[in-house]
């Protein structure tokens, strides 16, 4: 039997009067890879940001690893330790070296000795194939390298769920592949992943489930095969025709 790691039940969220998430239901199994796409403003980023409480939802229930997300800071901390996140803008810490960026959270959150944390940081830098950049500062790296460091930084906390919020949207085209390669490798190792992206090639290779969102709702959820070859809603068809045929 597969283990459910994330559950969203009737989740609603508003920014003042604007209804961003409408009755979202979603359940994610351990090891599942879910790719979320949709037009901008459809609520895809907001949804995954609710899963580690960077945004608070107002109605409904979000359960991660059996812990419900409420205002209880203890629960939030517990969940954040197990859920890694990669951002569109990388959000590396510019005042810290690459190695310090990665070892910071293990040292301060997990109370790991500095030496051990740095060894772990190095091992993840090797995993994303840039161990030679360890002593540099983020400002000295290319976009693709920065995003790989950001992935290594999340992995160093040894999370069992990874959230990716448009990880390649801010990258030059020739750097997208090096980041996607790292993500594919991660997927092959069995990580549970929720990825907001418009990289449909990546989605076809990696995704177990595709989700299409529009105006705050999940319009369609299907396997990639069904999603790309036989989409059910007209809105999905229109969206796919636009991003696949440009």
């Amino acid at each position, binding site marked *: 039997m597969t283990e459910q790691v994330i559950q969203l039940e009737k989740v609603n969220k508003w920014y003042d009067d604007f209804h961003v998430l409408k009755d979202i239901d979603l359940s994610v199994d351990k090891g599942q890879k879910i790719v979320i796409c949709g037009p901008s403003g459809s609520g895809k980023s907001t949804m995954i940001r609710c899963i*580690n409480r*960077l945004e608070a939802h107002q109605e409904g229930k979000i359960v991660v690893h059996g812990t419900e997300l409420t205002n209880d800071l203890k629960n939030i*901390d517990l969940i*954040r*330790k197990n*859920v*890694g*996140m990669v*951002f569109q*803008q990388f*959000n*590396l*810490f*510019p*005042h810290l070296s690459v190695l310090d960026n990665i070892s*910071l*959270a293990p040292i*301060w*959150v997990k109370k790991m000795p500095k030496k051990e944390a740095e060894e772990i940081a190095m091992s993840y830098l090797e995993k994303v194939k840039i161990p030679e950049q360890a002593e540099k*500062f*983020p*400002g*000295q790296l290319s976009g693709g390298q920065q995003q790989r460091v*950001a992935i290594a*930084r*999340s992995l160093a*906390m040894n999370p069992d769920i990874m959230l990716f919020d448009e990880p390649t949207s801010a990258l030059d085209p020739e750097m997208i592949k090096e980041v996607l390669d790292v993500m594919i490798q991660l997927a092959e190792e069995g990580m549970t992943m929720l990825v907001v992206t418009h990289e449909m090639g990546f989605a076809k290779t990696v995704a177990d489930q595709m989700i299409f969102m529009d105006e705050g709702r999940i319009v369609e959820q299907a396997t990639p095969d069904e999603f790309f070859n036989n989409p059910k809603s007209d809105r999905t068809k229109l969206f796919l025709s636009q991003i696949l045929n440009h």
Partner: protein
Amino acid sequence: MSSSISFTHNKYYSWCRNNLFSSWINGIITILSIYFIYEVSSFFLNWTIFEADFVNNFRGEKITDRTFCSKNIEPGQHGACWAIIIVRFHQFIYGFYPVEEAWRVNLVYGLLPFALVGIFFDNLPFRKYFIYFTFLFPFIGYFLLYGGAGLDVVGTSKWGGLLVTLFLGVTGILLAFPLSIILALGRRSKMPVIKTICIIFIEFIRGVPLITLLFTANVMLPLFLPEGVRPDNLLRALVAVTLFQSAYMAEAIRGGLQAIPKGQLEAAQSLGLTYWQSTRKIILPQALKISIPPIVNTCIGLFKDTSLVLIIGLFDLLGVGRAAVADIDWAKLHYEVYVFISLVFFIFCFGMSRYSLYLEKKLKTDNS
């Protein structure tokens, strides 16, 4: 190839040509400027150094009051009479601190760099021990200056001159720094009570001249305190100066905090760091780095503003200078006194300014 050195290819020549004499107008302005600089600097150098009296006048007599100054003896003499500074040097540096106890002040002056160096330079060998010393220093300094336990007590009413200026400036800035960080964070807090308190504090202090605060601290504070509690005059000034500085510094730091992208905090939170961990390790280091120029600006401002304490009866460097000018024995030597005081202030303020440039350079982590 020609063996003669071509004058026109000399790099100094071409620099002058390009920058100073690129056109007729530029050339005329250059010449006028050089003439102006020559006139001003030759007058100033003659006055301060070449025609000036130091210990003895032009007849070789030791100067003990203003009647011995060369310019007061011989109509043709114009030079400065630095004897007023030299004779009253003790007062300028120590105020009315007893001469036989002055070594205590010297010791504090001598130890001060060791206390500061640990905070200022993080690549220092044995920095840990310097930092320990920094935390001990206020107690050592207070004990040495004030006395007690074996040393004669020297009340703060006897402190003066550079001692008071440095005491208020350095202590005020160092105490205001942590307070201003708390105020700046508080002003951005989501907790309405804390936020309101910080806003009211900052806006009130910033909306009032320092002189008013000094008067308030000096005259009104005792009215609010229970009978018999009479805080020291200097301490009252220190409280006023610290509060004033913390409000200004808080606003400088808030500017830095606002410049940090929201994503930094989100990234820190998504890694599981708590609010205080994110603030300490991620937000503040970046915000303070951006705020260095405005912070140093307020520090320089405050250091100079300490001279205002003379209106509540404290004799800081400027106060001692004014007392010297008012002394009948030395009357009419304003220029010498004010030039000397300006020079002392300039050395400290310029030092702060250079240190901030050094910091900015050191903390730069990108390629730009």
